[in-house]
């Protein structure tokens, strides 16, 4: 593929047109926070954390879904973007019930890290404190909707990698919820293979294995990509 040139934060970078802005930034260690993106899964542009400014486009674009083009001039870290990333982070925390001190993911949570990254010292919006269910019906795993941020990584990994499509989304607006099958308890699922991929894909403490306590969760989101690479080798792609 032909080499093209993009300019990111005033640095000229040679690359190819099949990549997204996020790919190029990650390759060149340009820091862009993400939440709904997970390497190996399709990109949906939902969390809006990876928004960037592109010269000539009047709208902010999500870096994970926008392909680079020759002579594209991109800014990833302007004051406006920084401000908006912080608001997004605050809204994540205000939306559901994130009590880090009692969370299994404490210290290993992508949302918590995001809070540090965008220097969120406090949340300026009222907490919504919605009533959310904790589904413990599965013999090995727990789904705690209080800590879910609707990134839909579990939905995509289950459908795209495991091929089971146990997870999906129901309702609209701030009433959206992740559901198992047609909104039945996870333990009664007829599609779940109990493979545990969703648990590793989940960025927070929303999906976790039973029999661990606060702060003990070990997640390996990178195994999703490893798995896909291994399969490709196996299938001789």
């Amino acid at each position, binding site marked *: 593929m032909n080499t093209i040139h993009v300019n990111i934060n005033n640095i000229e970078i040679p690359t190819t047109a099949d990549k997204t802005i996020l790919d190029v930034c990650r390759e060149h260690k340009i820091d862009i926070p993400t939440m709904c993106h997970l390497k190996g899964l399709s990109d949906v*542009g939902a969390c809006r954390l990876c928004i960037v400014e592109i010269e000539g486009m009047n*709208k902010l674009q999500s870096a994970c879904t926008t392909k680079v083009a020759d002579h594209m001039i991109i800014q990833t870290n302007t004051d406006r973007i920084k401000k908006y990333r912080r608001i997004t982070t605050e*809204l994540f925390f205000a939306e559901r019930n994130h009590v880090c001190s009692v969370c299994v993911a404490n210290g290993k949570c992508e949302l918590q890290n995001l809070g540090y990254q965008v220097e969120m010292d406090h949340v300026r919006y009222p907490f919504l404190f919605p009533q959310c269910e904790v589904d413990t019906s599965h013999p090995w795993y727990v789904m705690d909707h209080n800590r879910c941020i609707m990134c839909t990584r579990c939905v995509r990994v289950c459908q795209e990698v495991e091929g089971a499509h146990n997870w999906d989304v129901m*309702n609209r607006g*701030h009433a959206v919820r992740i559901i198992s099958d047609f909104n039945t308890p996870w333990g009664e699922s007829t599609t779940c293979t109990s493979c545990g991929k969703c648990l590793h894909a989940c960025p927070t403490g929303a999906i976790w294995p039973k029999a661990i306590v606060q702060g003990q969760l070990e997640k390996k989101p990178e195994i999703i990509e490893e798995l896909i690479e291994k399969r490709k080798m196996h299938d001789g792609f």
Partner: protein
Amino acid sequence: MNRLDFHTKIAALQQLDKTKTVQHRIGICCGAGCISSGSEEILKKLESEVQQRGLSEKVEVIPTGCMGPCNHGPLLKHLDQHTIYQKVNCTNITSILQQHVIEQTLIEDQLLFSDSRTNAHADYRADPFFKKQCKIALRNCGKINPESIEAYLLQDGYKALDKALFEYTPEEIIGEIKHSRLRGRGGAGYPTGIKWETVYKYVNNEKYVICNGDEGDPGAFMDRSILEGDPFSVLEGITIAAYAVGASKGYAYIRGEYPLAIKRFESALKQARKWGLLGNQILGSSFHFDLEVRIGAGAFVCGEETALIASIEGKRGTPKPRPPFPAQSGLWGKPTLINNVETFAAIVPIVLKGGEWYSEIGTAKSAGTKVFALAGKVNYAGLIEVPMGTSLREIVFEIGGGMQNQASFKAAQTGGPSGGCIPIEFLDVKMDYESLLSLGSIMGSGGLIIMDEHSDMVDVARFFMEFCMDESCGKCVPCRVGTKMMHDLLQKICINKGTNKDLERLEELALYVKETSLCGLGASAPNPLLSTLRHFRSEYETRIHPSQDTVQDKNQSG
């Protein structure tokens, strides 16, 4: 049926029409508004009355689409003499038949607008409500039976498709549409010709055309009225579009809340297939095209093109980031043309009369006409179509007959939940895309709500925010959580509990949601708030008590 047979059949139809002995064609409005006030029953009553009196040879009773002045329905129109009677019912219908039709005397106190005008017009076309209008998309609405292809054919129906297929190449049709400067009527106003050309240029043996009839904004009933009143002209427009861009399959996505529109459109499909105007080798040409109806489940977001496409594919109706645009990768990943109902309704007249003709109507940047659903505190509310650039004042005070109960005009809300409010200082604003945008509102799809001095602008902003909050698909954070936060803050201000800090946060959130949301729903959700803040800021400020600031802030930062 090949072209020649088609022409022969049309000629026979016209001949038959000429030999008819009917002298009085009486239209009864069977638009959704009039039906809900009982017009179907009136239609039946009139039909049986005509039968009983043995008048069938002379009088024809015709159910029609929307006639326009909806808040004066049920309406009866003498289609040959151009007289409209208002508020018809099962009792006075017999006296109208007796007096107007048989005795040929005008019933002055039942004429349209007779209760509010000193001299109501016997010929409705002379009334200011109609005089200022220019009906192109609505040309057949309220004039013909929407369920009869014969009636449509007698109004030059399918002449445009015939012309397109045999006298024009696809490039030439696209050229005409570009020349007409028609812009999409679904809200964003994207040039239709350019969109068609983009789809045309993508090489693919599978392309789709979609007609967007989801119309989810509160207060809007333009697309509904067109689909109910003249489904064939939309269908013909879609077929021409398919020929121009090279598609052989189409979908009409109509919202489930419009059962009548769905019924009439499906009946149109059936009749068109029978006449060989849909299906294989249309009119004997090498062009194949067929269309299916898809029924929407009533989510506002499914009107957004990428969500609508997902919905047709059987998926959850949530938007996708663009690019890629549907023109490149739409339904099933194929090049897809998606246009609004009203956009398609304008195609037939453009093909028949030429792009030049259409481009001369309207303003320099917004050509043609726009249909509005005029509602709220005006005397004459209903469905209107005016040239682009008609001033708001003309619409409210001439067409709309001024404000109800002599109240004073306060604001006009355009564009529904994605639009804004125009205050009295800008009553002379020209209704076109650019002028409305410059005032912080948008043309949108054509909802137009007139408000008087009693309207509370903060509450208006709260109402539309609540709508967006409920209708947000929930995919992206700014819209999902941001609209909820903005709604709660507005609610707080509405009950006089707001603080200056709240107002500050509201403004910050509004800009944030506008600039970061994934799709147009979120990006435009703050518009009613921002525009009322711009034009009616004092209404917010008078509700805010600075004394509350310190107390509340302590509570919140904990």
